Structure formats: C-alpha cells, structure tokens
C-alpha cells in the first residue's frame, strides 16, 4: 500500500554508551562516597544489610547496581542486573530522559517530578538514594554544573568539599 512502511526500532548507541559510562563512574563514586562522606554513610546506615538497589534505563539498560553487603560495606556491583536480587529498582523511562539527567539538564528530583522515573520498591529508600545521588554529584561536579543537577546546593565546609572530592575521585578511579 502506498504511504505505508514498517519501521524497525533503531538504536541510539552513542547516547546509550554515554549514559552507561556516566552510570559506571557514578556507581563507583557512590561506593567511594559511602566510605568518605558522613551524610552518605548515614543514608546507607538506614538501609538493611544485604540491600541492593538499581538505577536502570528502560527498556534494556544500561543499569547501575549498588549493594550493601552483610558487613555493611557499600559496593558498586556492576551493570548487569542478572544474578542480583534487586530490592529497589529505580527505572528511567527512556534513554532521552536518562540523557537529560546525566547531562544535568534536569536534576533527579525534577526528573522524578516530571514522571521520568518509575520506582519499584520502598519509597523511603528511594528518597535516600536520591539524596545520596545529590551528595555524589556535588563531589563530582564543579559548582556551576552541580547546581543544575541537585535539588539544593549545600554550603559544605572547605575540608568536606575539597578533601572529600579528592578522596571520592581517587577511590572512584582505583575502585576501593
């Protein structure tokens, strides 16, 4: 029939790769911040041991899996959700929404308010994860960008901000 065609879903490989890299680094930074930052430690302390959460992009990833082991240590558990029992799954509805988030055009709270995320799991823990993401973004990003990415840019002490930043970066790069 004229004017009809069937279109196979294409790919957005470049965007997907960018988000995957950002999630990979963010995951390692969360692990680092949990060891370095008191506020992040406190947020994780409110989660039960063995608790695992994931930040994923629908429908097929990328994913970021973070878990708290039985001894209370926070670990970045990679990008493959298979083999992990996910207690809290925070799903970004599509790659474009993820891109808005990871290019800091939208903060996590704004993305949530605009219904770009779906949460499967406990809402209180999801809010804690949001706060942890905000803390990590302040460590990772210069103020001018971080202000766009977080709900409220806090006035941290020099020691916390800069010493913490160095430690988070070093721990993220060397993954310890």
């Amino acid at each position, binding site marked *: 029939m004229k004017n009809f065609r069937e279109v196979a879903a294409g790919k957005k490989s470049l965007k997907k790769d960018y988000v995957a890299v950002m999630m990979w680094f963010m995951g390692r930074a969360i692990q680092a911040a949990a060891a370095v930052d008191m506020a992040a430690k406190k947020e994780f302390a409110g989660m039960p041991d063995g608790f695992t959460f994931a930040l994923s992009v*629908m429908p097929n990833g990328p994913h970021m899996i973070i878990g708290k082991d039985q001894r209370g240590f926070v670990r970045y558990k990679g990008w493959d959700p298979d083999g992990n029992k996910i207690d809290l799954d925070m799903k970004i*509805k599509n790659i474009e929404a993820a891109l808005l988030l990871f290019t800091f055009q939208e903060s996590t709270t704004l993305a949530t308010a605009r219904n770009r995320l779906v949460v499967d799991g406990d809402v209180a823990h999801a809010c804690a994860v949001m706060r942890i993401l905000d803390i990590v973004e302040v460590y990772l990003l210069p103020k001018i960008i971080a202000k766009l990415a977080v709900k409220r840019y806090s006035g941290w002490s020099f020691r916390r901000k800069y010493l913490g930043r160095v430690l988070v970066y070093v721990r993220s790069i060397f993954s310890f």
Partner: protein
Amino acid sequence: MYLPERYEFFCPVKINSGNRALEHVPFELDALNARKPLVVAGKDVGERGLVGVIIDAFKDSGLAIGVYDGVPSAPDLKLIRELFNIYRDRGHDALIAIGGGSAADTAKVLNIAVSGKPEDIEGCAGENLIKKPLKPLIIVPTTAGTGYEVSKYAFFAGRDYASHFLMPNLAVIDPRMTIPEDAVTTAAAALFALTHAAEAYTCPGKNPLADAYAYTAIQLIMANLVNVIGDQRDKNGRLSLANAHAMAGCAFSNVALGVAHKLGKVMGDLCHLPQGLCMGMLLPRVLEREMSEGGYHIADLLLPLAGFDTYASTAADMKARRAVEIIHDLLKDLSAANGGAISRIWKDIQVSEDTLQDIAQRAGVNEASFDIDGCAKILREAREGR
C-alpha cells in the same frame, strides 16, 4: 461556584505533555500491553517531517512500528478497509494518530473496525452505540489539533460517532509536534477550542470539573494566542495552546454541544471554511443572544478571559457585557495580526440569505432561545458585523 443538583463527569484520557513527551510513548504502550502500534498520520504531517520525530522517539525501544502517512483531508471507508487489512495482516495491536482532524477521526473509526469487524463502523454511528472497550489508542495532536482528539466524538465519511470508548487512552502533547502550519490554521484551531471551552463554561449543563478544564483552557488561549499568531516560533506558547485544545476537548465531552459550535461546524462545511474561524466569529454573537435571554453564567466567563483584576473592578451587572467585549477584542487583535490574513478570510466569506437559512436549519439547534430564525439572525449579524 456553581454546583448543579446532579452531574456526571468522565475523562479517562491520560495526558502526557512537555519536552520529550513522545519518548515516553513506548513505556505507555507497554503499560497498555501493546507491542506493535500502527501510526496513522495525515499527508501534511508526513510532508512536514513530523513522522520522523515519532520514528526517532521509538529508537532504542525495541518496538517495530507501522507508519501510514497518507490520510487525506476527507478520508473514506475504502481507506479504513485498507488500514484494517494492514493492522490485521501485520499483527498490530495499538493505534497512534498524529494530528487532529481527519487523522484522529480515521484512527478512532479504524479502532472500531480493528476491535471488532469492519462492518461495525456503520452500526456504531450515532450516540453511545459502541458497547465495549476498543484497542489502545494514542493521539498526538499537532497545531491543527482542536480538542476533538481527546473527545468522545468522531466524524467520518458523513457519519457522526459519539461514545466514551472513542476517547484515546493517551494524548501526547510534545512541542516538537506543534510546529506551526500557518497563522490561519493556528487561529482556527484555537478559536475552535475557545468556543468549546466558553460554551462548556456557560452552558446550563456545566459542572465544576468541566469548569476546571474549560477555565484553564480559556486562560491559556487568552494568554498565548495573539503572541503565537505574531511569532509562531514561540515554543512555550504553542505548547500552551496545544494543552488548551486538549483541555477544551475534555470539557466539551462532558456537556452538550453549544450553539456556536453547531452553527460554526455547519457553516464551515457548507462554505468550505475553517470551522474554528466560523465558530470564533459566531461565539460573541451567540453569547450576546444568551445574555439577553438571561444566561447568567456568561458573567463568570470574565474571570478566565480577563483575570482577577478586571473581574474584580467590573460591576456585577457589567461582567457579562465585558466578557463578550473581550472576545470581540480578541477577534480584532487576531484580524490585525499576521498582516490581516485572518481578517481577509472573514471579509471574503460569501454567505447568501438562502445559505444562511440552510445553515440555521441543518445545525439542529434545539434550545428555547435559538429557533431557526434566531440562528439565522445570529448568522446575519456575524456576516454584517465582521
């Protein structure tokens, strides 16, 4: 606040509006248990490259889509049969219509066919003759969207359909899809929506929930229409208008159709003019007539039309008159905008006395204060006063 002794309100349409709203469609389809939608779009939509935006939005979703972008302005049953065969043979399980008007009507009527059999189309024409829910339907309005896209109505090949089952599951309003065609189309669509909203807000069957939709629609149109006509690149203004169209559609789906709508629709069809321009031209005259017959809700219209300050500073007995004046002013502003293109269309309308009577008769207006002579008088006044 007017609360009728009894009322009903029904609006199951989910509205997804804003930046990158189209990219959420695969997620919404998944929620509707659909995996392979058929996109139905008008010829103009295809020519303007808007189908490409939809295709792009499905990238990375893992879903294959069928695209038909050849719906003419006056589609017929042959097209429905062809689309029915495509839908069935290629295993589609949902419909996405792009654009208001004929594409939305085609998708709605096609949905009757694919949810049952093509012969159902004839049997379902009329009021509430569809007896079961239809397949998932998503409508993406463009600038030409008039609010019909979210309404319970469809008009196809000379048949009128009205059923809540025709309402789409989702309307997606994305600024990328509201790229302007021309000032006349934009104005006609907005006046269409303004007429629906104003008549829903002032009709005897009004209710607080329909009022909420109508109120916001009127506010958005008043705040943005003239700006958008002047500068069609105004993305936020276009998004506001598209939202207003959808809201007006929700409002008028829950009240009886008004006199300006009925007369304007027939006038547009008979005189081959944009229906919205006809409705807009008739609206203030119809309100004036209702005012003289004691239409007390017209005074309430001043609030969404002009805002709190004007409403508060206008004497109670002058509010209705002022509301009508503001609509007249809006029409004048529109006439002046865009180099007088709209004004020329209004001035060039050739409506003979016979046609005028014909319109009044065919409109099927049944209100006490609007007999055929009354309708003819309004049409005459509009013709002379333009």
